[in-house]
């Protein structure tokens, strides 16, 4: 039996289960960035809690993390945040009904909510790209 028909494609179904619009790939990226940010965040709570142990503990932890590989990882978290936050704005607006449009007669070509909110999606992605460029400039050019 076709596995897509059972509704149990599992993780593979996130990426492909038929013809997807761009929003479906936005959803996939939203999940991946969400899981990545969560993994970082759980460790981040431990790392930053070391400030309660005083200057020595804080500076030894920060010294350990001051390596190019961790700096690059931090930048990836920043990129994931810029995407997840702005795509999340679109999702919440949609969830609350703002981007769905008014109900109307189904006259061809049918008005589709996805098409209606796509300019918003595009605007948010441009904003997200701008934030990523600004962050990359701060991370790698200005050098902190």
């Amino acid at each position: 039996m076709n596995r897509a028909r059972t509704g149990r494609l599992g993780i593979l179904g996130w990426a492909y289960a038929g013809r997807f619009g761009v929003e479906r790939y936005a959803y996939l990226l939203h999940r991946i960035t969400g899981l990545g940010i969560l993994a970082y965040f759980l460790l981040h709570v431990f790392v930053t809690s070391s400030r309660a142990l005083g200057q020595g503990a804080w500076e030894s932890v920060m010294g350990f993390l001051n390596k190019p590989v961790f700096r690059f990882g931090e930048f990836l978290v920043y990129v994931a945040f810029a995407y997840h936050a702005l795509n999340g704005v679109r999702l919440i607006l949609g969830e609350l009904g703002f981007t769905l449009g008014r109900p109307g007669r189904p006259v061809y070509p049918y008005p589709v909510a996805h098409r209606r909110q796509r300019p918003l999606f595009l605007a948010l992605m441009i904003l997200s790209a701008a934030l990523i460029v600004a962050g990359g400039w701060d991370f790698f050019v200005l050098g902190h």
Partner: protein
Amino acid sequence: MREATLWTLHLAAGIVILVLLAVHMGIMHLEDILAAMGTGYPDPLSWTSVVVRSKKLLFTVAYVLLLGTALYHGLYGLRNILLELNPGRVAARVIQWLVLALGISLFVLGTVAAIVAYVR
């Protein structure tokens, strides 16, 4: 709690995080750009900067609020992703309790650290 309530809290937490994390990312990662615009707030990871922020009540309250909302939002999302993969009944219960225990213990750790850094 009803699933619909948990989901609404997930959205509400997302909005709180959007505001607080934007400030956090600005302070931590756009610091040179902001400093060039005249905030006078470079090197946010130095011990001196950490102490300055830790001693402010507003920062401490914001830390704890961001900690709670981010843990809830992230772990609820993780739980949804895991439950969506159709685990068995026992596995689903284990996932729920593990996620809850992880969230509560990290919240306690982070809050204690924020309070210790504030009062010291």
